[in-house]
């Protein structure tokens, strides 16, 4: 197969930030009509590479060629005008405007200074139809799901400049059906000759959609491979730079050393959030929650932590009937909760690693009983080492850490409290393979030590690997509770989700 000339070629790219060599002589090329995956752990330099390409940062060394001509973009706008558009995980559109307005914002079709609304709507509809999307373009963007919003963003990007499209983790908050829809759109664009740069943490998706991949590690190029010629295990090995022993180790899951029931929810529910459910979690047990996005997984978890009030049912913790009005009440009974939204509901970005780690403990003690500085330092140093938080500087602002390390900081905050029940909502979403394995191993160790864990995850394999029992949710209802024995597979789980437990 004669490879066509690359539309984009980056060679010898280096970029230094204070104290970090973010990119070190990286080469990268993108062919027209291919989906090219950019792979690497968090902090490997993927985002930096995208940012220097789109003009967010300038480069210290190296050269970027677009269509054979050297370019240097001073802003994302310039890059866009030259034909490189980026769609980020968080959609950068105006939710209060209509779909058509969002697509044409800043370049509305006009006549005599007046916006031609009818033409705008028609063209927007045509554009979306090209992506197999038939929706009402005059409805506000916010009335559509995140997946549709993302596709509107893609439609806009493609319409503005149709040569290079960068998709930075577009799938991390989509469910399986939405991912399929997105992939259909991507394949269609590919056929039109657009080069797509794709970043995702989901290996299965990479293998499904991408033709070629470039792997980065610690700011340096590991290599460029055809997706079909590189196995998953080899890929992971190249990304983390060591063997996959870490992940394999978990396969021998220890049997549950369960003792008495710790949390007993009976008919617990909240109107319009989760139907009444009955669930018992025993000490030392990992209970997994599986279900599609929006099936009520998070809502169930939040009730057990008092983040929302239950409107029906009763809850017993350690045999004692309780009514959780605030998270604080749950904390005092030994329940801890890591939210799925680390940035908005978990960490305080402007505070340091140390302050974030001691925050819950300090809140529990109250403002008038400060934790002595020496105790703080000991605790923080202990958990930075135990969870392998990098960089290990306790005075670093949490904002500056990568996703996986932020997740570990959040975990450390709760582990300090030595909870009896740890509720983990999507603790491994959007983090790299190495950190994922570390967190999974930690969960296994904690439950071995007698802690009960409620583990919520969209990844069925992960739920299966860690849980002793799996609760399946569908349409805001707990439809089944399955013991995780040899007979339970992802297939069975998917069937249960699909059939609603009636099979």
């Amino acid at each position, binding site marked *: 197969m004669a490879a066509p000339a690359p539309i984009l070629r980056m060679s010898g790219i280096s970029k230094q930030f204070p104290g970090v060599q973010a990119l070190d002589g990286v080469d990268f090329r993108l062919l027209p009509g291919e989906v090219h995956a950019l792979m690497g752990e968090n902090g490997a330099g993927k985002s930096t590479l995208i940012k220097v390409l789109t003009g967010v940062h300038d480069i210290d060394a190296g050269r970027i060629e677009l269509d054979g001509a050297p370019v240097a973009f001073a802003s994302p706008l310039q890059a866009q005008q030259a034909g490189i558009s980026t769609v980020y995980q968080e959609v950068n559109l105006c939710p209060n405007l209509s779909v058509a307005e969002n697509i044409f914002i800043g370049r509305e079709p006009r006549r005599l200074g007046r916006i031609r609304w009818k033409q705008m709507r028609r063209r927007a509809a045509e554009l979306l139809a090209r992506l197999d999307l038939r929706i009402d373009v005059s409805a506000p963007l916010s009335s559509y799901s995140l997946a549709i919003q993302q596709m509107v963003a893609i439609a806009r990007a493609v319409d503005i400049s149709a040569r290079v499209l960068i998709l930075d983790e577009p799938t991390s908050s989509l469910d399986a059906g939405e991912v399929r829809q997105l992939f259909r759109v991507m394949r269609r664009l590919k056929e039109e000759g657009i080069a797509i740069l794709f970043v995702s943490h989901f290996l299965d998706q990479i293998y499904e959609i991408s033709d070629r991949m470039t792997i980065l590690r610690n700011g340096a190029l590991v290599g460029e491979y055809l997706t079909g010629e590189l196995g998953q295990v080899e890929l992971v090995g190249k990304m983390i730079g060591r063997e996959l022993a870490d992940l394999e180790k978990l396969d021998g899951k220890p049997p549950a050393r369960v003792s008495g029931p710790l949390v007993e929810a009976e008919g617990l529910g909240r109107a319009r959030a989760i139907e009444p459910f009955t669930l018992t979690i025993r000490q030392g047990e990992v209970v997994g929650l599986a279900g599609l996005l929006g099936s009520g997984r998070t809502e169930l978890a939040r009730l057990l932590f008092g983040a929302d009030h239950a409107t029906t049912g009763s809850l017993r913790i350690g045999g004692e009937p309780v009514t959780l009005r605030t998270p604080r009440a749950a904390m005092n009974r030994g329940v801890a909760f890591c939210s799925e939204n680390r940035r908005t509901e*978990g960490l305080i970005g402007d505070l340091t690693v140390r302050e974030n780690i001691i925050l819950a403990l300090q809140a529990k003690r109250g403002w008038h009983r400060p934790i002595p500085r020496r105790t703080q330092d000991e605790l923080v140093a202990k958990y930075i080492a135990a969870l392998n938080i990098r960089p290990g500087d306790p005075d670093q602002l949490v904002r500056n850490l990568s996703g996986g390390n932020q997740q570990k900081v959040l975990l450390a905050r709760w582990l300090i409290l030595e909870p009896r029940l740890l509720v983990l909502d999507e603790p491994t979403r959007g983090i790299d393979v190495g950190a994922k394995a570390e967190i999974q191993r930690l969960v296994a160790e904690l439950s071995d030590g007698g802690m009960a864990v409620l583990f919520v995850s969209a990844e069925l394999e992960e739920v299966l690997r860690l849980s002793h029992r799996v609760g399946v949710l569908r349409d805001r209802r707990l439809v089944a509770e399955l013991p995780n024995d040899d007979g339970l597979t992802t297939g069975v789980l998917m069937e249960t989700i699909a059939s609603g437990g009636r099979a």
Partner: protein
Amino acid sequence: MTALARHRLLWPGAVLALLLLANVAFTPGFLSIEMKDGHLYGSLIDIVRFGAPLILVAIGMTLVIATGGIDLSVGSVVAISGALACLRISELPDQDGVGGVLAAVGLALALAVALGAWNGFLVAAVGIQPIIATLIIMVAGRGLAQLITDGQIITVNSDPYKLIGGGYWLTLPFGILIVLAVLAATAFLTRRLALGLLIESIGGNATASRLAGIRSRGLTVAVYAFCALCAGIAGLMISSNVSSADGNNAGLWIELDAILAVVIGGTSLMGGRFSLAGTVLGALIIQTLTTTIYSVGVPPETTLLFKALVVTAVCLAQSPSFREKAFRRRGRRGPAAPAATDEKVEVAA
């Protein structure tokens, strides 16, 4: 940690030093402090003394802003507290009786705290945006102050009350001692105890703070009450200094100066990290500026414009993104600049 503090206070400190130097150039004896009748006198003492109410209000405002809020009502609270204290004292049979004055002062401060708690309640429990919630007392509070004074200016003739804003103790103006005491107490509560961390956490991310088990509602109410208490003390100082209460003009626009002081001091209006030392520097800059305008002899009709120019310059110097831009431009021209650019990035981070 100390390096960070040094960086954050670098610019306000430099501006203050520059202002003081400008004064020395125009008024040779500006920095001299002398002892007269057992009291310290001098321009520097005067700046702190006249700036004392502003420093107090700004300290309270710092904590409110750190929670991500703002308190527009402090000016009205200043007027109310002064008016109520003067009214009670004017009704005393013996205005020089310490007990009666203390009762009046206590009552005025209690009312201030109640008003602040009301603000906090509206913000934290009802969920009204701080700027609107405190606007209510900002507007209605002036009316309340008028009501207390019956539309008149109440004058009192009380030596114990005069001490608060105009007296001396241990050679220093009493107002400066009050400021030092409040500052020390605030610093102790926020930095030695854990109050500062919890406030910064609420301002940094309210949802996450709730999920971390912080009682943000109670803390927010307490912070607004504390801010009003500071304003109340400032109100006593202002009315005591002139031995009268003017419901209309006491503390007029002080909320804006206080917010300005906080911002100059490097605390973000978005909430989160705050710096008490920065706020004190900011308030001193504003007061020194006022003094400078008089000593340099800026024509009265242009004083506001002059003040606006200096404040704009200070705010620009404070802004990391502006400094980065200014330095980057220079960096492309001169060879000595790369080092400076690196330093900027560090400051910005």
